[in-house]
Every structure is written in C-alpha cells, then in structure tokens.
C-alpha cells in the first residue's frame, strides 16, 4: 500500500482496509509517502485536531463524533491492532520525513519500522498481489 494521504478520513479508510488484510493474515507493506509522513510524526499521530479532512472538510466535527459514537478505533489504533495480528511493516519515505521535519525513525510514532527510498516501494509494489494507493 502506498499511503500518500495524511488526512483523518483517508487514514481511517487505510486503517479499516488494513484491518481486513489483518483478518486475512496477509503480509502488508505500507509505504508512507508525502502527506502521510506528517501524520506519522510523534507529535501528531492520534491528535485529530492536527489533522485535516480531505473530503467534506467542513463536516469534520460530525465525522469525528460519528466515529466516536460507533466506537470506531482511531487510525493509529487500527494500525496498531493490524500489526499485532499480522505481518505489517510500515516504511516511511525518507524525503517525506525530511519535508515534515523527521530525519530519524524516533521522530515517528513507534509503529514505523524503517525509513526507505522509492526503490524499495517499487520493488514491493511489483511483487504485491494487491496494491492500493491511498
């Protein structure tokens, strides 16, 4: 999966899709590209107030309230659960990290496994049975 997006709605969608992959015991490699890398910064993560909404931005409060009412996990919780259930590796794009002020792995939430370049992503995409760009 290429996770380009760093908005709360798309991160939530990625988390739900990832949960389906986890239920299926799939091996998943997530390449966190440009805007996605910002969301993975330690000081952002689950802090929804620091994340925008890509679609219907004016309805963010309604969206967040509905998620809470339906007891839907936060996007970080989805990613964490999936990592516990199946083999999920989260790779942060080195350039993306730098753009958002993250040079080292410890600048990102503890779910991130390593910092990689675009070559690794292409290889994984070529070898994958299913490939998504979010």
């Amino acid at each position: 999966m290429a996770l380009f997006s760093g908005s709360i709605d798309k991160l939530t969608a990625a988390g739900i899709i990832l949960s389906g992959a986890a239920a299926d015991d799939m091996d998943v490699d997530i390449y966190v590209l440009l805007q996605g890398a910002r969301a993975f910064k330690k000081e952002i993560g689950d802090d929804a107030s620091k994340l925008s909404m890509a679609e219907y931005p004016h309805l963010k409060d309604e969206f967040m309230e509905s998620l809470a009412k339906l007891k839907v996990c936060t996007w970080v919780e989805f990613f964490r659960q999936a990592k516990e259930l199946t083999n999920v590796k989260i790779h942060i794009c080195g350039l993306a990290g730098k753009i958002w002020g993250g040079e080292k792995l410890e600048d990102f939430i503890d779910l991130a496994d390593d910092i990689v370049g675009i070559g690794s992503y292409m290889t994984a995409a070529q070898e994958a049975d299913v490939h998504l760009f979010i």
Partner: protein
Amino acid sequence: MTSEDIKNLKIAKVVDARGTACPGPLLAAKKAIGEIAEGDIMEILSSDEATKNDVPKWAVKKGYTFLGAVEESGYFKIYLKK
C-alpha cells in the same frame, strides 16, 4: 443446519461484538478464533448489519465452517466451526 440444531450446538467461545461497527466484529472474530481448538464452535454476536455477510465469507476463505446465523432482536448470532 436448522435453528433447532443451532440451539443444541456446544459453544466453546462466545464473542460479543455488539456495539462495535465494521471492522470491529471481524477483528474480534479473528482474535478469538485463535483461542479455540480445531473442531470447536464459536458464537459471534453482532449488531452490525455488514458482519452478517462479512464474517461468513471470511470464515470460509480461512477454511472454517459457517454453520448458520440466527436473528435476535437488534442483533444476530453467527456460528463458526474451526
């Protein structure tokens, strides 16, 4: 399997996923099935309409047996055999 057969099943584990939306029940089922033995039966309670299709499809794909589902008021029960 008739509803009478389902009533007489020996349930090894009950997973109460009522009150959570998709993918909550699926993840709960996935976690719980690892805790039962081969041949054991699991009952999943869910109030999420999508689960009724989702969990049986997942179960069959993973090689488990879907025994049936029973509607209750406001939720339903799904039976799987590992």
